[in-house]
């Protein structure tokens, strides 16, 4: 445990050193290099942080407190008008305290903080002329118009419903953009990083974008690894002040669900948002995931598979986030239930406070996951926040006698620089 902490600290310090050096370079190379980022610390109170995969400890064994740290540094370098490079480093740790369950509950989960050090971005842009643009390296491809989930975004790494702005890690890819009059054509290649993998396991896609009149439209073809190819489309439109958006993906013969009449996949979302007088904002999105399970028994079977997977790999990274999402239905790719309703509302008041509520509702089993958040803008670059996470697992918990809910409260501060 101590070794892990020392390792994590060294990684953090080295990150800061690299970025500080970059900042100095930026000052020396005026207008050629840019540096920025954010630093976030948080205290966490969580109902229980037990390792339920391996057996739930009694409540007296768990200290319901913890801490999180999230550092991100961006370095942008523009050596010439036609060339730009970007580097984004991330350091994250998010851990609640817990006893060494290896001796008390038989758990094999390490009690050390879950530390991740990532190169979130690392790419080079080359724009030889006004028509052509190329980007090579680790990047976010960001397909689609939805907030909580993008059914068309098969090539990026998946993210959870409430983390759209939480800077997800990119994928190593090649992207080319070609302006063809009112239409922009794009090609994507995401090579597989598995050792010894061949071309068939890579991701490939073509997409066309256009903005005729008051609507944004895209149409695409995407092949993700050995899965069947899919065609995609999305739109964004404003009708009488209401913003409308949607996405759809169609994939022939790609559905593993036994209850489906055909093996075709149709995943989609439809959404709307509106700004009400007084500074109120409301967005609603409805999702259908055709590859997900139709009922609770299938869900439980799925949980068993996931449990086996975690045990086999010994990898606990991302595990708590997965379980939170699971309890509410696991929205998105690899999701557990078919239909979800997502709601997001916000209101800024007294010029310094912003209240926000995001929630996912699963009508199949009545589960709900909600994240209320209150922010206070302290000066220009500092935000103080209180954020909750409330989970009601609906029928899943009642029928499966699953784990206690993972209600959580975070209090923290984020500084941008």
């Amino acid at each position: 445990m101590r070794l892990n902490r020392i390792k994590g600290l060294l990684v953090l310090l080295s990150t800061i050193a690299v970025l500080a050096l970059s900042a100095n370079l930026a000052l020396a190379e005026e207008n050629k290099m840019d540096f920025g980022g954010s630093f976030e610390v948080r205290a966490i109170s969580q109902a229980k942080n037990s390792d339920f995969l391996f057996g739930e400890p009694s409540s007296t064994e768990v200290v319901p407190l913890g801490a999180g740290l999230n550092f991100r540094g961006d370095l942008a370098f523009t050596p010439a008008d036609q060339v730009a490079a970007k580097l984004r480093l991330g350091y994250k740790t998010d851990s609640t305290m817990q006893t060494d369950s290896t001796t008390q509950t038989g758990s094999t989960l390490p009690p050390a903080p879950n530390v991740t050090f990532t190169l979130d971005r690392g790419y080079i842009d080359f724009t030889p002329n006004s028509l052509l643009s190329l980007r090579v390296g680790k990047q976010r491809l960001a397909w689609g118009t939805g907030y909580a989930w993008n059914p068309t975004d098969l090539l990026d790494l998946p993210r959870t419903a409430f983390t759209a702005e939480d800077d997800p890690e990119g994928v190593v890819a090649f992207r080319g953009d070609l302006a063809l009059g009112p239409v922009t054509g794009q090609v994507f290649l995401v090579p597989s990083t598995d050792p010894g993998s061949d071309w068939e396991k890579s991701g490939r896609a073509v997409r066309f974008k256009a903005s005729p009149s008051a609507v944004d439209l895209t149409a695409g073809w995407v092949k993700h690894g050995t899965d069947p190819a899919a065609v995609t489309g999305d739109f964004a439109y404003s009708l009488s002040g209401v913003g409308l958006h949607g996405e759809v993906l169609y994939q022939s013969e790609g559905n593993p669900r036994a209850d489906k009449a055909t093996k075709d996949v149709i995943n989609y979302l439809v959404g709307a948002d509106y700004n009400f007088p007084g500074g109120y904002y409301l967005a609603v999105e409805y999702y259908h995931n055709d590859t997900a399970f139709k009922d609770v028994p299938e869900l439980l079977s799925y949980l068993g598979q996931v449990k086996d997977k975690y045990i086999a790999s010994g990898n606990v990274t991302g595990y708590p986030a997965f379980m939170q999402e699971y309890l509410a239905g696991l929205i998105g790719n690899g999701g557990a239930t078919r239909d979800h309703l997502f709601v997001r509302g916000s209101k800024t008041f007294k010029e310094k406070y912003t209240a926000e509520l995001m929630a996912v509702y699963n009508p199949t089993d009545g589960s709900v996951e909600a994240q209320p958040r209150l922010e206070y803008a302290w000066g220009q670059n500092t935000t103080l926040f209180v954020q909750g996470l409330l989970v009601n697992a609906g029928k899943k918990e009642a029928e499966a006698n699953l784990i206690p809910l993972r209600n959580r409260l975070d209090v923290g501060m984020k500084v941008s620089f």
Partner: protein
Amino acid sequence: MRSKVLFAAAMALALALMVAGITAPGAVKAAPSTGLSGDEILVKVDGIMEAKATVMDAAMTTVGSNGTEKSSEMIIYTKKDAAGKARTLIRYLSPAADKGIGFLSLGSVDKMWMYLPKVEKLVRIAGSMVKQSMMNSDFSYEDLMDRANFAEYYSAQVVGNENIEGQNCYVLELKAKKGSAHYRQVKLWVRQDNFIPAKEEFYSGSGKLVKVSYQTDLAVMDGRTVPTKIVFKDLEQKGHQTVLTIKDIRFSAEVPERTFSLQYLEKGQ
């Protein structure tokens, strides 16, 4: 995510207000015109907004009713398209939390997009934003659209002459001649020596005064006279105001056509 859109919209208005204050070279020395009709003066006011392309460094400070301030810095590119519609691209330079946010307007309310660098995503701005106060600032999108061309939306009559802070001004009353004009009436004080507006009052359909702006601190930048300070007040937010400061304008800068594309908004190239 969408709350950031409000920030960008505020920047867009900053642009419009700045452009409104730009006057042609030498205009500051022009003799006061006499015998001009209201519409003729309005055409001259619009005329001094004329600029094929500009690059501006600007700052905006929103002062809240409780005295709190929030400041932003940005670079603003403008250029007219072949049809004469003003296009705008704004890129935030500060504060750090907003750095890199981009805003693109292609000259109409249904052609506005936002780039959010944190998630590296383009977002179309919904029409309901148009009528909103922008990030607690004192103006809305429609302020921006109306400001782009007075003569297109209003007819004007000269109703007098007044002195505003030592400057002789024509007083114009503008009445909307298009249903798409945001304000039914506008009262405009135009400096007689250079046709730069000194003060504006905006009225609702019921005749209620809702907003006021002042353009002051004239200075010569890149050979033209501009107001370097614009104060905008939404009277329904008591004690609230937004101050726009022009730090630099370059009229001779080349602004490539691709600057006003979604690709440039997203990639910055």
